[in-house]
């Protein structure tokens, strides 16, 4: 295969993806969409791992992505359970209507 994708491009892409995730978390009120944005951010991280793995010739990047995925899966499961429970109690999924943690 001719030319290889330069590292900085992948990183740029990963950064953009990460930022979009952050914006999604900050902007949206719906808990689920926030959750999706977090997934985006995680994937951005994965991308960066793979990109570095590739450029540094080591498999560790990919293995790490593997671990990130398991964590993400666990996280989504628990997160969604919480959201479902939240919905049962408060009839709402919108984050800014829930301030039980008020200090």
């Amino acid at each position, binding site marked *: *295969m001719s*030319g*290889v*994708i*330069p*590292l*900085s491009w992948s*990183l*740029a*892409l990963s*950064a953009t*993806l*990460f*930022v*979009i995730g*952050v*914006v*999604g*978390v*900050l*902007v949206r009120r*719906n808990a*689920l*969409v926030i*959750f*999706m*944005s977090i997934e*985006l951010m995680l*994937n951005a991280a*994965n*991308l960066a791992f*793979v990109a570095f*793995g*590739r*450029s540094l010739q080591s*498999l*560790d*990047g*990919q*293995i790490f992505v*593997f*671990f990130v*995925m*398991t*964590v*993400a*899966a*666990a996280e*989504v*499961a*628990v997160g*969604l*359970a919480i*959201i*479902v*429970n939240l919905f*049962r*109690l408060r*009839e709402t999924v919108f984050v*800014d209507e829930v301030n039980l943690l008020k200090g």
Partner: protein
Amino acid sequence: MIFLFAGFAALLVASSLLVVLHRNPVTSALFLVLAFCSLGGIYLLLQAEFVALVQVIVYAGAIMVLFLFVIMYLNLRQDVERGVQTAIRRGLGWLVGAVLLAEAFALIAKRWQVGPVSGGPEMLEGNTQAIGRALYTRYLFPFEITSLLLLVAMIGVIVIAKGRGGTAAADDSAEEKP
């Protein structure tokens, strides 16, 4: 090769933007699936075949399905974004996003400009075998820990989802409501 990468990248960015922006959670969930697949493609380009496939299967297949299930379960309507308070927050959100982006690009431009551009020699053996060997030798311990993590997560989910006995009655009533 580069074009392929650019295509996938554009697709990825567009779909993730839409995930964030779209009002209806179901459509944004679907766009997220698209984003994950395009990401899988990029992994392929980076010769991380096993990861790409796992990405598609785990993320697109499993996690997004769960998402969609929950969205349907809660049959959410359109997200409505009203009120001045949310406007400020949205404004702030975008602002912070822009700042972060600028910083990231500046950093990338400064730091990894001279990164080794060369692709380097081909992998000796198949990507999957290599990962398998590494996973069960050097990373055996973390591997076991992740399995434990998953087990804990499952138990947690069951406990949370079941809710404390008393609320069982409450959640039935919750369902009748439209």
